[in-house]
Structure formats: C-alpha cells, structure tokens
C-alpha cells in the first residue's frame, strides 16, 4: 500500500541526515595547524554552515519522526467508531441552560392586552433547561423545562420524535410547539426580537404550545417541501393552560380538538439568496368553530462569510382568525354566540454585520380575537450584539398606538447560553 511505501522512503531520508550529523560532529583535523589563518577561517566558516544545515536537518528529522509516530499510531489502531462525535453531542443527554433576562421601561400602563406594563421592570424572561438525546435507534427525545418571572417552573416542551420512519415521515408526540406559521413555534430566546410579535401573542396566545400528535412528511424531491398534519388538545400556550386548569372538564369531543395542516417550502434563488414560504391552517370543527389561517414568507441573503456585511433577513407573517365566542353577562348567563373575524401580522428586516452585530426594524399590527378588536400598531427598532456565540445583548425600542393610548417602551435584554444550545433545524 502506498502509505507503507512512503514510510520506507521517509526512513531512508532519515538515514542520510544521521550520516550528516555524524560528519558534522567529528572534530577538525589536527594537521590544519600548518595552514595559514585564512584557510583555517574558511574551514571554520564551512563547518559552521555545515553545522547550521545539520541543525535544520535534525529539526526536520524530528518533525518527520513525530509525524511517523502519529501516523503509525493512527494507522495501527483500527478505529472502533466511524465518526468523531463532539463531546457535547456524545453526552447522553445533551444538556444546556439559557438565562434570558431583561430590563424594560415603558411610559403607559395601557396596552396590557399586548403585555406592556408601565414603569421600570426587571424580568427573568426565561431560565430554560434544555435536554435532548437519541433514545434508541428509532427515537429521540427532548424537554425544555423553564421558569420565568410571571410563571413558576414548568415543562414547556417534552416530546418524542421518530428518527427512522421510512418515506421521509416523522412522528412527534407529547407537549411541544405546534407547527403553526414560522415564529409562533420558536422559543422566546431564539426570536430575533426581545418579545414575540404582539400579533402572534394575541392571536395564538403566546407561542404555539400544544399537547398532541404531529406527523410530517418531507417530499422526496430536490425542492424542499414539508407537509405537516397535527391533532392537539389545544394550540397556544395560554389556551393549553386554560384547558389543563379545567382538569376533568377540560375533556372534549373529538371534533372539539385542534386540527392542523401546514405546507412549507424552501427554494434557493441564487447561491446566497433564498426564500421560504409557508401556509397553515389550524382549526376546531365544533363549538368554537375556529379557523386560523396563517401565511409566512422569509427572504434571506446569506453569503456565509466574515466580511463587514454578513447578510439580511426579511420576514413577514399574517394571520386570519374566525372563531365563535360565547359571551355572557355579569351573572354568567349566555347573551350571545357571536363569530369574530380578526387578523394581524408583522414584517421585519434584520441586517447582519461583522463582529456579531445586527440591526433591525419591525412593524406589527394586531387585533384581539375576542371582544372589541382593540387594534394596536407597534413599530420597533432593535440592535443585537453577540460578544460570543454564547452571549447576546439586545436593545429594542417600541412605539405603540391604536385604539388605546400610545406607549413607548425601551428594553435591554441580556442572554447567556450555557452549553451547546440549539432548538435545531426548525428554528434556523
């Protein structure tokens, strides 16, 4: 084999160098005493040159020997695995922790509907323990256990996912963020802003938390198209909480469950430009007779270099909700069953620069799905700086106006990631 052949040649060269060392190391002939000073000087210089060359040869030889040793070690040892796996991934399970903290200052006490309290406010936005691991050759599992200023310790997600179903199918079960739209199923700390866009917060009830079963299919073509179908108790973390608080009375008929369908595609427009498009429907056939349609578009420029300009994201999402509400008077008597049709959405742009620095702007329009529409518009600007891959500081200014008073809010968010924290492919 050619590798062995090479080893042989290296050692022959080594032999030549050894001979040189011996030659250089031998003393000068004593008979030089009768030569004149010039000759002696020349000889001395020649010897010095020789010695220098030898030194270099020896250094090179040492390097060769080190290389050969290393090669021999790796050549002799038959690897027991086929891959070097990062220790962070080899841990079973991989564990990480996020500390996401913020200080916000706002001018008005109104806009409670979109979550802006007045005055100064330090918050632990999220303290999240994230655990994930392959379970067996067929499954992987993960859990996200978190606490915030508002709510105590809770299981945000705990799900199992198949890894080896045929035909590009994946099945997911447990408590997890349902595949609605794009940002509704992102974790708080992964969002490009300090807050979830108010339109998502109000229309979906926070992130798309759910308990249920979801199946998705990756089409076997070059174009990336993924189709998801799901069945859940409820979609939206606030809705889920309400339902679970009802205990036994939270049980409902099959037709009162949440159904979901989503199709999501990705296309490379060029080597560095790409687009993503998604459409989803989630609905409850009976009782609330809810239909929530959502459309999301993302355009990205991703050169993937370290130049001073590093890319641009453009994202937008729009939601339409149609739902029947039972409205009661103060005594609890049913006054009317009324259908509300409401909508909302956001668009944002974020540009990335060298030294892990990005700036962006967002506009959001939101309505309340229930009761009065309570229209709100929010314009935001944000600056994000990541001193390292594991630390992030973000400043955001929001100006809100609409059916209620205007409000200005300023937020500083400081986030640290302990361990390799990634919610994976879906939250790129």
């Amino acid at each position, binding site marked *: *084999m*050619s*590798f062995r052949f*090479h080893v042989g040649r290296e050692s022959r060269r080594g032999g030549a160098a050894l001979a040189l060392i011996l030659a250089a190391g031998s003393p000068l002939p004593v008979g030089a005493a009768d030569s004149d000073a010039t000759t002696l000087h020349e000889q001395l210089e020649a010897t010095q040159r020789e010695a220098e060359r030898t030194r270099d040869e020896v250094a090179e030889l040492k390097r060769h020997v080190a*290389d050969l040793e*290393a090669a021999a*070690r*790796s*050549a002799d040892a038959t*690897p027991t*695995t*086929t*891959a*070097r*796996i*990062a*220790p*962070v*991934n080899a841990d079973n399970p991989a564990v990480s922790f996020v500390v996401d903290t913020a200080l916000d200052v706002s001018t008005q006490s109104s806009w409670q509907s979109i979550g802006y309290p007045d005055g100064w406010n330090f918050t632990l936005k999220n303290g999240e323990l994230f655990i994930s691991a392959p379970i067996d050759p067929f499954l992987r599992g993960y859990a996200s256990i978190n606490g915030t200023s508002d709510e105590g310790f809770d299981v945000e997600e705990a799900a199992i996912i198949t*890894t*080896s*179903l045929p035909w*590009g199918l*994946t099945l997911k079960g447990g408590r997890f963020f349902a595949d609605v739209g794009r940002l509704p199923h992102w974790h708080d700390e992964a969002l490009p802003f300090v807050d979830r866009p108010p339109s998502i917060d109000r229309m979906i009830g926070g992130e798309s938390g759910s308990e249920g*079963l979801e199946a998705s*299919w*990756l*089409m*076997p*073509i*070059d*174009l*990336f198209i993924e*189709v998801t*179908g799901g*069945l859940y108790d409820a979609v939206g973390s606030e809705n889920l909480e309400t339902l679970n608080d009802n205990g036994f009375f939270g049980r409902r008929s*099959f037709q009162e469950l949440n159904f979901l*369908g989503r199709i999501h595609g*990705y296309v*490379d427009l060029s*080597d560095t430009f*790409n687009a*993503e498009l998604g459409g989803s429907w989630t609905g409850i056939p009976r009782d609330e007779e809810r239909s929530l349609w959502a459309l999301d578009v993302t355009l990205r420029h*991703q*050169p*993937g*270099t*370290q*130049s*001073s300009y590093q*890319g641009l994201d453009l994202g937008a999402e729009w939601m339409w909700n149609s739902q029947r509400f039972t409205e009661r008077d103060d005594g609890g008597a049913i006054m009317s069953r009324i259908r509300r049709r409401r909508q909302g959405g956001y668009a944002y742009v974020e540009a990335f620069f*060298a*030294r892990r620095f990005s700036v962006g702007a967002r506009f959001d329009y939101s309505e309340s799905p229930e009761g009065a529409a309570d229209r709100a518009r929010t314009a935001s600007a944000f600056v994000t700086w990541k*001193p*390292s*891959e*594991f630390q992030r500081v973000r400043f955001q200014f929001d100006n809100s106006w609409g059916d209620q008073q205007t409000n200005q809010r300023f937020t500083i968010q400081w986030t640290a990631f302990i361990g390799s924290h990634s919610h*994976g*492919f879906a939250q*790129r």
Partner: protein
Amino acid sequence: MALPSVSRRLRHPFPFAILAIALSLSTGVASAKLRVVASTPDVADMARQIGGDRVSVVTIANPRQDPHKVPVRPSFATRLHRADALVVQGLGLEHAFIPALIEGARNGNILPGAPGYIDASLYVKPLQVPSSQNRSQGELHPLGNPHFNLDPVQGKRMARAIAEGLERVDPSGADDYREGLERFTTLLDEKIEEWARLAEPLRGVKVVSYHNDLIYLANRYGLLQVGTIEIKPGIQPTPGHLENLLRLMKRENVKIIIREISYDPGVARSLAERTGARVVPLAVMAGGLGPEGYVDSIQANLEALVGAVAESGSP
C-alpha cells in the same frame, strides 16, 4: 390512541402518496451512482477523485465561505435525505450546518455513527485539543483544531478515511475505491515532495492570521504563527487585543499577515499599514483562491505565501 381516526379523518395522505411516488420516479432513479453529499469542497474533491464514475457528489459549502459560518439551507436537507453517504471533514468544523441538516434530512443512513457518515478526520491526530471543555477558551474548536486540510500530509489521511467510507457504503466498488485512493495518494506524494522544495522559503517565517487555522500548515512548512487577529477562535478582536498584536508584530518583526479569504480585509490592511507587513490571501477551503480541487488549492496557497515572503524579504 387516536391514530387510526387521524388517517381516516385527513383525506390528504392518499393523493400525497401518489404525488410522492410520481416525483420519486421522475427524479430519484435518474442514476445508479452512489449519491454523496460533501460538506466542504476539499472532501468533495477527494470523494470525486477516489470515487470517479461510481459517485455523484454535491458540495454544501462554497469555497469563499467561512466553514464555521456556512448557513443551513434546507435545499441540502433534501439532498441529504436521499443521499447514500455524507462526507464531512470532521473535528467539529461543520458545527454550524451539518448537525441541523442531518436533523432536517430524516435519513438514518447518514447519522453520525451510521455507515453512511464518512468522517475524514478519522486518521488525523488532532492538534490543540483543549484540556477542558471550558468555553472561556473560545468556542469553535472544542475537539482540537479542525483545519488540518491545509496540510497535504493530513490530506492523505483524509483520503484514506474517505476511501474506506465509500467502500463501507458500497462494497461492490471496493476495487475502484482502492484504486482511486492509490491514484490520489500517488499524486499527492509527488506533490508533497515538490511542495517541500517550493515552500522552503517559508521556514522560520513569522506570520499572523485572522483565525487560528494554521497549525497543521505551519508545522509542515516551518511557519511560525506569532498571533491571531481573533482573540480566540470565534471571538472578535477588541481594540486592546489589536494594540497588543501590533506591539507583538513590531517586536517580532512580523512581515506576513494571512487573511483567510472569508474575512473582511479591513483589519488586516490597517495592521499591515502600521507594521509594513504584507497581506496574503489564504483559502481555508479548496477553491477559495480560484484554482479548484484539493491539490490545486494547496498549490495556490503555497504559491501565494512564497510569493509574499519573497517580496517582503522576510524573515
């Protein structure tokens, strides 16, 4: 569980299945070649050289990108979904995109540890392995320095791991892969002798680079890396760090600044102006300086370095 009811309820799966079969017939069975997805141009070129006509290779990273910053493009998840093998350079070099793409690909054959996951770092002895997994020492090289592809002797080890991987996935092609490896290794051996002469002027030359990616190259050709512009791999320089680096460069009389081509030229240029050093572009992935292919890219890197050293009158 409600599973049977779900499939009864959703009428979609059946037409989708027909569509899927139609699509896979139209695009999937196009060739009987081994479908290989390669993370970087270096391992892609090696897989092509070794696999020849038996393989069709798709490359994820493009040569002008930073291997630590390659974006996750779902279009590669679909390629990986139907791939027979994934070739990575390894040692965590591709942490930014390979784990996420593997997750998105839904292909059990290319999961780390599965036969189709071909790790080119298998026979490389990692250098600069951190003594602890403490992130305070930077973040991008937790398994040791992954830029061994810049040293052609490591290239031989990469090729061996790739050839063995291809043979593992496609045993019927064993003879072809062995022959391909022999051919590639012979070529590399010739070049390695040639390069040893070409790179002779690099011995003892002091250099500064943006990123800590020179160790294997420097060990091979005797370059002395005095410092990096980044504080640690992945940690951007502060003004204080740059001042220290400037002082160090002046004290050590550093005349060569290596700019990995995915980095902004700005900092290197201003350091060069203040020290009289020369800025040399370096391709950390094959093809970055123009010439494509592993061998030609090494040649281009060495020529650029030797050229700059000659002009600078270093050391």
